């Protein structure tokens, strides 16, 4: 059986098609290119944050500060633009801040050996606090239109940011497959002790994962500012949990070692599609979180059952080996006092 057919990405992708078809049957408007493109466009931020989060989960860690990093970078970008900083420079500044924020997590986890959940829970508070300190708590509005232009810029009939995200997904997929050191992310999450014995630089690998999570939150922040056009203090709020949900849904294993950017992509689009579907089904908006959560639970539970079944299978195989052992091994079969 090839790996592709077993993959969770494909399963979720098929589920997504089923969802789209079902909703389309009830409300044909849903099936219009426009609404589909709308779903894609509104999932871009989550896709990017989820890919960043995936790097960390691959190493068997967790980063709950990515939403806050998104918010902080968005604030930096907004403040810089309002202060008259040129767009490219402001974008660069926002990215640098996001990378630094990720590095702080990385230092805490790798060198100070703080457990990931505690470290990033701490920085979640710190980064959210910084947002308020920088802005004094007020929203950043009146953002120059030059950045908002990109959100509506269509290239070959498709929005610019969709292209950007697509390129990023393809690029990370390619690099994760072919770049030698990317393999370390999987190895460290799959078997950290084994990785150490194989001379793999475990600390550097972990450091890179948290830094990348920051960078991807920063990229998401730029799209956020461009799409929304202002920066509320809630920017990025709860994105970390949605990103983790999207990853898990798409097949990233919280126990480490398994997952691809496609997992993040499919999971993020699925969660966003559910939100849109509810709108088209005229379900009130406050159902969104509950439905999304229920879908996640169902997916994780199914996944758990499948893994249990596999484990049971392996145990039985091992027992069979032992039995064979006892039949064939002369050291046990011939003796009887």
């Amino acid at each position, binding site marked *: 059986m090839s*790996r592709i057919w077993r993959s969770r990405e494909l399963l979720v992708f098929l589920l997504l098609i089923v969802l789209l078809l079902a909703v389309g049957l009830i409300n044909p408007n849903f099936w219009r290119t426009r609404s589909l493109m709308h779903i894609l466009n509104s999932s871009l931020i989550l896709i990017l944050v989820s890919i960043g989060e995936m790097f960390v989960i691959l190493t068997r860690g967790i980063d709950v500060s990515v939403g806050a990093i998104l918010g902080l970078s968005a604030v930096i970008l907004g403040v810089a633009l309002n202060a008259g900083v040129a767009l490219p420079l402001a974008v660069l500044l926002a990215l640098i801040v996001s990378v630094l924020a990720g590095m702080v997590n990385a230092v805490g986890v790798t060198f100070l050996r703080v457990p990931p959940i505690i470290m990033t829970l701490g920085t979640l508070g710190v980064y959210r606090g910084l947002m308020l300190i920088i802005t004094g708590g007020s929203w950043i509005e009146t953002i120059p239109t030059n950045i908002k232009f990109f959100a509506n810029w269509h290239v070959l009939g498709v929005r610019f940011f969709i292209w950007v995200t697509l390129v990023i997904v393809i690029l990370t997929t390619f690099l994760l497959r072919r770049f030698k050191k990317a393999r370390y992310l*999987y190895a460290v999450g799959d078997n950290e002790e084994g990785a*150490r014995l194989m001379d793999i630089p475990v600390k550097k690998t972990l450091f890179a994962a948290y830094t990348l999570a920051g960078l991807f939150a920063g990229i998401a922040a730029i799209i956020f500012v461009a799409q929304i056009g202002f920066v509320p203090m809630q920017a990025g709020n709860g994105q970390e949990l949605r990103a983790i949900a999207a990853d898990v849904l798409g097949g990233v*294993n919280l126990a480490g070692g*398994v997952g691809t950017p496609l997992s993040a992509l499919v999971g993020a689009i699925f969660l966003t599609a559910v939100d849109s579907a509810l709108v088209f089904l005229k379900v009130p908006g406050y159902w969104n979180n509950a439905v999304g959560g229920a879908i996640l639970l169902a997916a994780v539970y199914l996944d758990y059952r499948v893994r249990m079944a596999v484990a049971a299978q392996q145990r039985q195989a091992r027992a069979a*080996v032992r039995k064979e052992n006892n039949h064939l091994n002369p050291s046990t079969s011939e003796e009887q*006092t």
Partner: protein
Amino acid sequence: MAKPVTPPPGRSSQSPNETPLVELKNIWKVFAGVPVLKGINLNLMPGEIHALLGGNGSGKSTTMKILSGLYVPERGEIFLGGEQKVFHSPNEAHKNGIYMVPQEPHIFPHLSVEENLLLGLDMDPRAARAQVKQLAKEIGFESSFSEEAGALSIANQQLLEIIRGLLRKAQILILDEPTSALTFREVENLFKRMRTLSQRGIGIFFISHRLNEVMTISHRISVLREGRIVLAEPTTEVNSEKLVRAMLPADAEMRDMKRKMRDSHDQITDEVVLAVKKLSSDAFQDVSFEVRAGEVVGLAGLVGAGRTEVAEAVVGLDPNARGDVIIKGKDTKKHDSRKSQSLGLVYVPEDRHAHGIFLELPSLYTMTATILDRLGRFLLSRKQEEAVGNDYRQQLSIKMSSLHQIAKTLSGGNQQKVVLAKALASKPDVIILDEPTRGVDASARQDVYHLIEQLAGQGVGILLISSELEEIVDLSDRILVMYQGRIIKETERTGASLQQVMAAAFGLQGEASL
């Protein structure tokens, strides 16, 4: 009847003037003030298969961990091809051509076989791939390279590890009990490959508990006991009897004499408090035995023989177990550990940190954990609880500043006593003690022995599991020996000698000459 011994194949090129691949000289290692290696001298010639034998805790694993860079010795030298070296990490050992294949192969289960092999390798991937193919062919590794490594059998995972070592140009391979999870046929295949490697001049340290395997495959055998090499001879010069004798403690015969002079516990009654009939599960088959009131039954065997698994199945912790467990005449179909306890059977597990004690809580909480329903009607009566605690604190002479001292701040011996107090608090009729003296200092050890005698005197039936054969032989009225998931020997105290029990634990049976 002695086991037929196949003569081992001679090494192709053996001359006395050869430089050894590696030579360990006077290696000392101390853990927590206790020396575990006391001057080990050991060497390995090119193309030699050198078997290391010894009971649990004899120091063979520690020695190999030093050689592979996992531990640094306190004293002693390692010479590699005549040059002195110290390894501070497995990485350094790899660079010097030493590769250890651990008992549980360190694979990355979700990566493909090829990814597993190439990972961390400082080589051009194309050249590496070609070399992998070459090595796989030579060694007869037949799985597909794109398969997930987690799906490989243990035997193939080991081969994967061996290829990994060869890719790193290993001249010295350490195989730590590689055969324990293999089928008979897989063992034969492994041996074939070991011979191939040996012909290529690669030296192999081979750790195994199976004497017949050691006799079949090795050129030379070294036996360790209590951190010393007590026997080192070419395989052709030894037989299993000699090996078993070497593994015995020096005062074995005196102990046997002393024991025979002492009477059996006279309080043993005919009442069977625990009967196990044809119990089988994944890790053991067809286990039957009885424990009577006031009797100490020792369950001996090596680590991995299936003793703990039997104990867990008897108390009802193994949902896959089939067979009958009868506690005081009551058949316990589908029982769990709670029900076992209410019937009067308690289990004191081997790993007390994981299963026996609340480390972060006051010691008293552990002691009374199973009898809370008896302490006060609705609310917990502190007075009653402390009364129980003080009772056992005195009875077991537990050294603690107060009953509320946090358990993890107690010494190992006192922690073990706290766990025993918990077991005794429910007033059991049968108690299973799994390695009760592991990690316990000498004086607490005597207290535990004394307690066992005392409990037996009160008519409690005891199943004592221990890897320390002396302990088993000294304390038990009857001894069961397990080997690879079966009870292969049962003997009364008076008829038992340490040597027989040791031989049985290593899978040798019915040798009249012993």
